[in-house]
């Protein structure tokens, strides 16, 4: 039998304080306004959908690389995918690439290639069914975008997608490419 009880934070005050301290400690590791560390992305191996294997450094050695973690059941991931494919094709001459790392489990792994083919997407698709890459790059929340420059330095991170955020994504890509924000419109 559930008894009536007023909503109270006091009983959990101690745990909130501890949680807060915990977070403060975590943030103390980080310098700068944003907590994105401009460190070089680790040279992790990636198995691509076509069966070949590459590494993150190889993919970013010619130009910037945008990594996105996704799954076939993730609706926001599918929404942003359309724009990421558009940027992958639009900035291909600047050696910009998009790597979509799929995290589907065996439950839906067999459907990944069919989905990509059905949408005619041309970006690179990596496979991470065991979430090895997503754990190492902290991409457990989907979609998570990580933008690295030509040298492999992480320049920008973003979690989630709501409509309209594709504008900021493109701005970040242009910044990394050293392009003017309005260059596309002028062109």
């Amino acid at each position, binding site marked *: 039998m*559930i008894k*009536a*009880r007023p*909503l109270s*934070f006091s009983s*959990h005050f101690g*745990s*909130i304080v*501890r*949680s807060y301290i*915990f*977070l403060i400690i*975590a943030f103390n*590791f980080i310098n700068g306004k*944003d*907590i*994105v*560390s401009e*460190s*070089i992305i*680790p040279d992790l191996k990636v198995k691509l959908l*076509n*069966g*070949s294997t590459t590494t993150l450094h190889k993919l970013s050695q010619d130009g910037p690389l945008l990594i996105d973690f996704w799954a076939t*059941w993730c609706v926001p991931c*599918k*929404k942003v995918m*359309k724009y990421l494919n558009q940027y992958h094709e639009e900035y291909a001459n600047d050696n910009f690439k998009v790597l979509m790392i799929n995290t*589907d*489990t*065996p439950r*839906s*792994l*067999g*459907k990944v*290639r*069919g989905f990509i*083919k*059905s*949408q*005619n997407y041309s970006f690179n698709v990596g496979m991470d*069914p*065991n*979430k*090895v890459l997503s*754990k*190492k*790059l*902290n*991409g457990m929340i989907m979609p998570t975008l990580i933008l690295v420059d030509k040298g492999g330095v*992480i320049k920008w*991170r*973003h*979690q*989630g997608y*709501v*409509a*309209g*955020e594709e504008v*900021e994504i493109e701005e970040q890509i242009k910044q990394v490419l050293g392009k003017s924000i309005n260059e596309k419109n002028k062109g």
Partner: protein
Amino acid sequence: MRKIRDRATCYTFGTFLISSSIIIANDIGFSGAVNASYGNSYDFYNFSENLLDLNFFYNDVQGWVQYEYSNPPDIGFTTNDIRKFRLEYVADDFLIKLGDIYQFWGRGLVLNQFDDQVTHFDNGTRGLYLEYNKYPFSFSHLNGNSDIWMLGGGARIPENNNIHNMSANRINYDFSTLALGFTQLETNEKHSLNSGPPVDINHNILGSYISWAGNFSDIFLEYADKVSTMSVSNFGGIPNDTLKRGYGYYQNINIYLGNWGLTTEYKRYSFDRLYGDLTANEYGNKIEYQQMPTLAKEHNSTLLGRVSHTYSFNDERGIQFELNGSIMNMAISMQYAHLSRNEKWRSNSENDWSHSIIDNYLPSSDFSALPYWENYNEISGYTLNERLYFKIGHGINREIIKNLRNFVGYQRDLSSIDTSYIEVYDSLEWDGTWYFDTTFIPLYDSIFTNEYNVESKLWQEAESFTIPVELNYFLKSGYSIGIGYQYQERKKFNRLKGNATNYDYGKSKWTMYNPDDYSQTFSTKTTQFATENGPAHKQFNRLISFSLSKASKWSLTITHDATSAFESGQLKDPYYNPLEALIYGDIKYFIGKRKNTNSPKWAQNRWVSAEFAYNITSSQRVSIMYGSIQGGLFCSNGICRIIPPFNDGVKVSYNASF
């Protein structure tokens, strides 16, 4: 219950701080994530869960530490310690891992390890992993221990745990589009029973897989064979004698044509069998490392998630087809799945069951094989100059949940008892003289009628029909408006069929539906849903959400979840909160004429919540939720969890990655 080890925590955390400082000082690459969540509700669903993940990268060495402070967590044990750690050395040919290891081979028929905190399932191994790569071959070895906890009767605190001491090996041949692998796994398990001391079992699995990917099609096949033996004598058994033997087979063939892709899947898992649900007391079957494809649609709709089928990795076969394509920039997806057990079950009496293996490769539609059908179609895309995103789905499913009785046989009735006498003639010779005697012995003999057919079937069945709709309209100013609507009709009933109603143990016979005409059959459905006015034939569920977002800044979502009827035991919303009163425009609440703990009847089957999410920076996000959330079934990766209701509560979550 695990204790909070404060002193140990101080040491570990101090070590963590020092090592982290060294990392920064030496400019070693690192990345991390913080996930903190806090919840407090009227019905004691309170939690405080904080996780810090830190990854280190230095030349060929990589490390990972996960620190948890949870008191208590959403699900699991109170923890204040380093939860997970791993150190890796990666060279050109070698890979060495030490610590908490998660491996995935083939499609998981032998080994698929993951840590799913939502369902509290973690089948990782703490130990050593070695991999040697010599193209096109690779050799892998995994060795260590796993302590796997599972939920029992409680919704939040795990009660059962199985301990494994395991080793696994794999040889993989990976040449361009062709891959071939052989796997082997052996584990000594200390298996917990529902009551009594645990049992020691040895499991040995041998598996192989092959895959090929072409331009227009690809194929994947995997087979696993498993033998389980008792490690020691138990219940008078023979040590090392085979306890159970089983196998699993999975195939996936995809065909691509233009911008259309057809996915076909087939599975047949047969590691153990029972007419009902297998419990912890049935051991020696599929082990926790085996996490295989389920062959069903992985839904992102809340209402479809609630009617998810509970898959059996021990005994299930099935097929699934999914067609994905696009027409006029609209994505189209059509899916169909049919699953069933591998055998049909007959009840010889109420408690005595026998089975017969289904004599083909396809799933059965016989109710005693617990079939499940699912069909989901979806269309999504952009319209109105790419400003409106839409997604419309249509899902139906039907399943036999329980096979409670399936008797088809004969019986005879007692027509009379023969009480007549028989004459027995006896003779005896005595002293040359014969004596004759005649005795009358009463005869008590049962006289039966001719045999007649008896059929008595009882099963539980459920079916649902769901339409999820999502619309998002983007404004030029960076704002967007979203509306979500999910409608569901659901039936759940007990079906009784045949010419006999039940078995009468007193008379040791089936009770016929019509005692005057045994050939007369009947069929009844008893619904499992009810309202305050009595039984309800259908349950209607409606989930409406409205959201307003500012790109890259914030989003506000209000969700209204309503149901028309309840299953027995399902809890109603016991607390009437101001958000609900505001949504319903209930003036009485605000002028003090309603009590929070005495919800109006029309509000007891509705749950309202509001969530505000704010992006502090592009990699930091905080969200606050207030209101009530209906509990129910949540399934992920083939593992289902009953989530308790969260009534009149606050949830705060913070996550950051760096």
